[in-house]
């Protein structure tokens, strides 16, 4: 294909990207579209926040259980982690939306159907899946603490539970902030899969704008930038958290993440 630069009538972004396409950014805010985007962002943030709370709860619990000196509890936590992290998230969404409610009694199913089953299936799906992944992050954090720390805690008269609650987990949580940030960002981005079970989150809304206006590139670009901003925001908040909770002299290291 020879260059045919002289054919460019006017250098538009579309021509630069090699597409026979005129960009019309106004579709992002004309009519209902701006409101849709905001609703999408709000739903994405809600699913992600609730899913994150579930993930952290399950993650801390099972991550801690995987390190306790009691085999049945370790095995139980390992089963949870291996089962949930080794099946694709999309499959879990289908499971929690199409499959799991079938196990409920009819009355509970009817109740659920009236209270947004899509939304809650997505929260549970995200939370349980990322809980399994978060668990590994937390286990790594706990195991990076020297064993003598636990022994010393118990020697001061704390019970095993107290030693975990008051010493090991608080230190581990500080150690794992960078990988946990990573996992939280993944969770936020993975929430976009919820559109497959009919949740009107951000990606859904960008596709909705595309469907109504047939302006795909504008809508997708908007979605991309919004996710980018949300993720950068979370990363910077987590950076602040890391700084705020550091234990002077204990686990601060040079080269802490800057945002």
């Amino acid at each position, binding site marked *: 294909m020879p260059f045919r630069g002289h054919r460019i009538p006017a250098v538009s972004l579309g021509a630069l990207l*090699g597409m026979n396409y005129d960009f019309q950014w106004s579709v992002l805010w004309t009519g209902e579209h701006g409101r849709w985007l905001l609703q999408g962002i709000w739903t994405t943030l809600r699913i992600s926040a609730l899913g994150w709370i579930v993930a952290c709860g399950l993650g801390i619990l099972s991550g801690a259980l995987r390190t306790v000196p009691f085999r049945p509890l370790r095995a139980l936590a390992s089963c949870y982690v291996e089962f949930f992290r080794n099946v694709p998230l999309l499959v879990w969404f289908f499971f929690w939306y199409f499959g799991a409610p079938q196990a409920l009694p009819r009355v509970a199913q009817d109740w659920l159907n009236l209270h947004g089953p899509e939304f809650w299936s997505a929260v549970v799906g995200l939370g349980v899946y990322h809980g399994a992944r978060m668990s590994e992050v937390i286990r790594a954090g706990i195991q990076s603490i020297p064993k003598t720390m636990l022994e010393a805690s118990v020697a001061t008269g704390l019970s095993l539970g107290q030693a975990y609650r008051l010493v090991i987990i608080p230190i581990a949580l500080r150690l794992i902030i960078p990988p946990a940030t990573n996992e939280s960002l993944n969770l936020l981005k993975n929430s976009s899969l919820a559109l497959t079970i009919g949740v009107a989150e951000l990606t859904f809304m960008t596709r909705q704008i595309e469907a109504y*206006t047939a302006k795909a590139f504008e809508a997708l670009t908007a979605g991309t930038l919004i996710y980018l901003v949300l993720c950068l925001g979370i990363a910077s908040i987590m950076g602040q958290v890391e700084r705020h909770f550091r234990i002077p002299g204990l686990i601060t290291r040079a080269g802490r993440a800057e945002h």
Partner: protein
Amino acid sequence: MRQMHRALHLAVVAAVVLGLAAAGWAAEITLEKINRTGVFTVGTRTSSPPFGYINKQNEWVGFSIDLARLVHKNIEKKLNKAIKFELKESTPATRIPLLSSGAVDLIAGTMTDTRARRDSVDFSLTFFVTGAQFLVKEGGPIHGIQDIAGKRVGAQQGSTNERIIHERVPQAQLVVFPDQPAAFTALVQGRVDTYTNDGVQLAGLKAKASNPKEWKIVGDVYSYEPYGMAVRKNDSDLRAIVNNSLMEAIEGGEYFRLYDKWFGPKSEVPYPLSDSARSFLMMQVVPK
């Protein structure tokens, strides 16, 4: 600072060179592209029987695909060489981007010709006419659009009927799925009370269901859905070939033979051609 300037300069040069190369490609019409690559790529559906779907023998077949094959034959005739016929999955949400980006050369699926879509793509003649209805479980409380307020209504994202429900019955709780199988599963599992789509698509779903007698298509059609094939904007050469292929097929009877194959009484999805639809199709055929 100086280094940064140099990097910036380099980036600008790279962008301009890339842009020029790309603009050359953009100026290429689809027929030239097909001639150069030797491939004609058609975007179609995988789960919309009988327009485009995977059948029990695991083959990708359908009415729209058969019509696209007629276009393919005419492209070969025009270019005077053998061209490979390739299919690519395209859903309502992905088809326009696929076409605009050049990933497919023609959309031949279940795309309704609308004025909004004509801003982005060019449509062929109408090759099928249908209208939206509702699929419900036999004996359910929904009998048409008048009964759906407050009900959970499944729809497919990007479809024209989803938009109409949204505007005409805002009290209905729309649950919008990206593809038809997910929406139908939601209906089967009771997550939604009804599923709305073009009547002929519902007939296809019903026919493919494990127990077709359980399902019923209800309601008067509440929308007009003329299906067209779509090509990139301002690509009149390809569009002319598509339109001529359709006109030849309607005039020569090939269209009606295919219609009978896919929608006839013995087909998987019986959907008789109404007299008005038949005369509408015939009237689109302009003289030679």
